């Protein structure tokens, strides 16, 4: 009986059942104009909401997801056993306290989890877009989110929060629409992609495109380029971990059963990568991987100009977090954003957290992040009270 009580109390503290919602805009004759000048429409965004909007609609926190994330950030969907990707951070009493804030997360434009992307139907042909889908940018992603917020009647976000590519979106929000974000939390991110980061993404893309099943992006309804996507995912996973975390997790341990083929993965680390790679095809569209990694690679917030000039006069409160062992988005990139904030006189705080988990740290290190984000958000003045 006690165990049941405990369990109930446990589930009490979490978000339980959630539902993914959909918002479609840019219906003909309207169009959604991309940064490149190309247009698409209609555009659908999949999103989830946790917690209630207050009367002034001033308590919204937008969570922006990373490369392979989606709108399902917390709670459980009907019939599913695994919770959303940031379940430990979002919920009653958690870092993003759903008793205080209305937390919103939407799948990015170009994604494959309910939002319009290359696997969506092209209204012109009635078939999936494939490579007819236009190239998109981080700015396009947040412009689509802005349309969603307009639809929800949210004039100003209490905070926009994201890690990795999510951090790029959050930073883009601050730069493009500073009046619409009271605060921003930028986690393990950068203001522009570096050659090393582009290089890893390029290898991932080439792996997908080298798969014969890729067929110039036209594989829907046929055999999927699962091998290519799997290799891309393996490369990704290597960059998300660290030397320490791999040592800790796998060491040089062998898998139990010897495989018949000479080059079967016999080390645990190899088995892990294979597993991660192979299972990825079940949840991710290879073309989306191409489009989104391209958007990330093209991300350069200030485009060669000094970043601090772009941030001048911005009143958004900013918290910048990096992780010590993150070599994919090393702390120096967060420091560059922090320095630009200092030079621009932006109210910003920077902290490097100690962790062995590499880039993945923002998805697994909860205690320190919870403490920081919770307190940071509390100190952001409520817009309604300010007026």
């Amino acid at each position, binding site marked *: 009986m006690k165990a049941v009580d405990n369990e109930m109390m446990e589930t009490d503290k979490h978000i339980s059942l959630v539902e993914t919602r959909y918002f479609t805009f840019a219906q003909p004759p309207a169009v959604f104009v991309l940064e490149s000048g190309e247009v698409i429409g209609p555009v659908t965004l999949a999103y989830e909401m946790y917690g209630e909007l207050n009367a002034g609609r001033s308590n919204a926190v937008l969570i922006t997801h990373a490369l392979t994330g989606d709108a399902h950030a917390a709670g459980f969907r009907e019939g599913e056993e695994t919770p959303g990707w940031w379940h430990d951070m979002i919920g009653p009493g958690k870092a993003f306290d759903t008793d205080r804030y209305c937390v919103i997360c939407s799948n990015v434009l170009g994604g494959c989890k309910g939002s319009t992307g290359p696997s969506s139907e092209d209204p012109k042909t009635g078939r999936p877009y494939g490579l007819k889908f236009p190239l998109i940018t981080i700015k396009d992603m947040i412009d689509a989110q802005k349309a969603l917020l307009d639809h929800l009647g949210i004039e100003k976000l209490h905070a926009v929060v994201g890690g990795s590519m999510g951090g790029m979106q959050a930073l883009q929000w601050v730069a493009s629409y500073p009046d619409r974000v009271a605060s921003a939390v930028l986690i393990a991110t950068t203001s522009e992609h570096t050659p090393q980061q582009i290089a890893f993404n390029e290898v991932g893309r080439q792996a997908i495109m080298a798969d014969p099943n890729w067929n110039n992006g036209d594989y829907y309804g046929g055999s999927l380029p699962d091998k290519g996507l799997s290799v891309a995912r393996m490369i990704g996973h290597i960059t998300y971990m660290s030397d320490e975390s791999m040592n800790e997790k796998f060491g040089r341990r062998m898998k139990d059963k010897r495989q018949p083929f000479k080059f079967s993965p016999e080390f645990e680390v190899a088995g892990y990568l294979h597993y991660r790679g192979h299972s990825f095809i079940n949840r991710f569209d290879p073309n989306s991987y191409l489009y989104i990694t391209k958007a990330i690679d093209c991300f350069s917030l200030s485009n060669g100009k000094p970043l*601090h000039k772009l941030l001048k006069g911005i009143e958004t409160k900013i918290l910048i977090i990096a992780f010590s062992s993150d070599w994919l988005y090393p702390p120096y990139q967060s420091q560059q954003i*922090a*320095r630009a904030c*200092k030079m621009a006189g932006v109210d910003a705080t*920077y902290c490097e*957290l100690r962790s062995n988990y590499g880039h993945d740290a923002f998805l697994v290190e909860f205690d320190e992040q919870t403490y920081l984000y919770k307190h940071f958000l509390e100190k952001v003045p409520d817009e309604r009270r300010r007026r």
Partner: protein
Amino acid sequence: MSVDAGNTRSGRDRIDHRLILEMVEPGSSVLDLGCGTGELLTLLARERNVKGQGIEIDDRAIFECVARGLSVFHDDIDTGLPEYSDRSFDYVIMNQSFQQVKKPDTVMREALRVGKRVIVGIPNFAHIISRCQVFFQGRAPVTPALPHEWYDTPNLHFLSITDFIGYCRGREIEIERARYAGERRCVGIFPNLLARTAIFKLRMEQ
């Protein structure tokens, strides 16, 4: 972690903080180098309505700063302040951090460049108790102002009030104001013998 963000009573009670508070004009801008948990910045924001910013090397201390709503950068002040332009703050404060940096001379020069004025708080190594410990016990002093054992101290440089005044003279740094304190009260006479800490308000000689 038990952090009480609202509790700044201890900050108000610290005599060095009170002396610094007296030196800061209301409404000014402040950069606190080695701001620790942000007690002083919080006090200055409340009592003097300053626009404050801190730099701190200890991540745990930064957690408390965030809880206090302060703007703080996790950085090493020894690497300088290159991102700040000249005279971008009314005051740059180094309270109890000046003797902890690797290159005090470089840090001081940077502080004087970035701040119109610099406020420095140092522990006095030549306080009478310290002198007695060295002289009679033959040991490195451990006092309330210098509370650390030799093997576990953040202090890299041990200087007296006289040392610091001499340093300023040699660098053409004007001491606009100097206040000296014991454990609880200000010290008026023989500060180099009787004061545990000293607070100086400095600027470059015109």
